[in-house]
């Protein structure tokens, strides 16, 4: 039996539930997006769902790491049946163009794959990018499994698991509804140096600091910068993070979780005092029901969110968040409005 709390027709970002409960929702022909450990996802029956691997979640009771439960988001506001398909390196650039004229596309991309890199690098230039809503997340794995397993995404209609392609659900909405995607980013640009990079890339050595040529590794090491703080760019008022993955003194290069772009000014983020408290204050109005949300695994780790609640926002804690383009250390959410 499904609890009445798991009413798949009610607008919600979803619930953390057992494999059995998720299976029942699938058998009842609901359209779903499912996040969970690969072993749990493999127990699900075929149906109208897409999935991605991740064992970290923000549930109704707070942050939770589990390999047994699944986070299920119902796709319950729609006009007609959504379309589910994979995208590979040759056609990922069509993901927005293929989206419905009125609706949104929900995408899950396996971390560390070539499509992950391609999307991170090129998505802002895709046809119809920003014109049609695109939301989603980057699938990951338990940190204990790093080096042993690979993140995967799933087309639930065929039960195909894939490490190299993105899975997408194109959802058409009724004419009187529209999708609204937004982000909650608690990081702001600090008042430190202006940093620019000459080239696009996941790794950088050369940069300019306040207009003067410099090596970014030397800069970070000399100032003992806390690399848990991301670089922050101001996109016309939207704060977009690029998280620092590693500072490689030997290679004299800094690696990022998302690419830096030329023509964009970055600054090291100002430190955030209390993530949980700041998050609660930054939550969107409760009268706008959230139908999808995800947050970053780095926020989960750095802010020690296990067992703590971040307001009413629930969903997978991911290896990257997609609000049109890839963002880092950011909570992404979507509301359906009329």
């Amino acid at each position, binding site marked *: 039996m499904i609890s009445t709390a798991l009413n798949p027709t009610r607008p919600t970002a979803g619930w953390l539930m057992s494999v059995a409960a998720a299976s029942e929702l699938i058998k009842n022909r609901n359209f779903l997006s499912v996040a969970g450990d690969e072993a749990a996802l493999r127990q699900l029956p075929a149906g109208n769902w897409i999935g991605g691997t991740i064992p970290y979640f923000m549930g109704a009771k707070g942050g939770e790491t589990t390999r047994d439960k699944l986070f299920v988001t119902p796709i319950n506001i729609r006009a007609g049946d959504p379309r589910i398909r994979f995208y590979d390196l*040759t*056609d990922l*650039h*069509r993901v927005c*163009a293929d989206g419905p004229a009125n609706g949104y596309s929900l995408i899950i991309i396996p971390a560390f794959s070539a499509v992950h890199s391609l999307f991170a690098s*090129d998505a*802002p*230039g*895709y*046809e*119809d*990018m*920003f*014109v*049609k*809503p695109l939301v989603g997340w980057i699938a990951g794995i338990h940190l204990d499994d790093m080096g042993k397993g690979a993140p995967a995404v799933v087309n639930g209609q065929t039960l195909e698991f894939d490490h190299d392609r993105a899975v997408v659900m194109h959802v058409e909405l009724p004419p009187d509804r*529209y999708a*609204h*995607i*937004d*982000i909650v980013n608690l990081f702001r640009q600090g008042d430190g140096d202006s940093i620019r990079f000459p080239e696009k890339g996941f790794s950088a050595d050369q940069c300019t600091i306040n207009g003067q040529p410099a090596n970014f590794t030397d800069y970070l090491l000399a100032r003992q910068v806390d690399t848990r703080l991301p670089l922050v760019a101001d*996109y*016309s*008022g*939207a704060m977009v993070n690029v998280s620092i993955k590693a500072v490689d003194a030997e290679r004299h290069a800094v690696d990022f979780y998302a690419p830096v*772009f030329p*023509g*964009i000014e970055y600054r090291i983020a100002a430190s955030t005092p209390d993530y949980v408290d700041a998050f609660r204050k930054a939550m969107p109005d409760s009268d706008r029901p959230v139908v999808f949300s995800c947050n970053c695994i780095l926020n989960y780790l750095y802010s020690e969110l296990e067992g703590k609640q971040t307001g009413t926002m629930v969903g997978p804690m991911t290896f990257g968040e997609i*609000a*049109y*383009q890839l963002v880092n250390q950011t909570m992404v959410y979507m509301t359906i*409005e009329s």
Partner: protein
Amino acid sequence: MAWDVLKKLLQVEAPWTIKEVKVDAAGKRMEIAVGVEEPRSWFGPARKRGDSGHQHVWRHLNLGPYHCHVRVFLPAGARTVNQPWAGEANAAFSHALARTIVGWLGEGIDLKRVGTVLDIEFQELWKFKFALDTGHMVIEEPQAAADAAGLAEATSEAVPDLTDPVWQELAEGRLNIDIRVLSLKLILTRVKSQLEMIQDREVKLLKLRELHRYFVRNERVLGHELAQLRRAR
């Protein structure tokens, strides 16, 4: 005789000439080799300037149902060929085809439809548009269709017309408005950074059209922002 007609169709003029035509009837593909006609000499055989050894193949405007590809043998010393049937060294399309595509995009025809009409792979078109967007390609001799009448695409009473200077002011950062919608923040930042790199007037207009199209398509979420644009006119 047939080649003379083909020369006229392609606008191949001396010193250029058609050297070979290959027709793949089954594949509906035609490849036309174009090179420089060697001048006659009154003093015996002319000193061969010879080809540079470089050749490029560009997809050109279709000839009937046939995809037309022009293979150009560059003469020694030549780097570029400013002819409608040739293109930029790093381009896949001839100048004529590129101008046609840009013109259609400017008329508001989306990339998919352009691909369907011209029978060009979407991926090829997307690469072309990406090169334009990033300033890696310019379209010379912009078409006359860039006049104001040609700028209009989708219209809306709530959205200022594309010819309104408010779009250029917004895209160039001379008009600052309070923006509440994430997608507008992102697309405006993209357009601003692209305009910094783009020199070509036609491509700049294309960017403004993209911004205008975004507003028309998302009018119902942009009430706060559109009110500011109307006040700024």
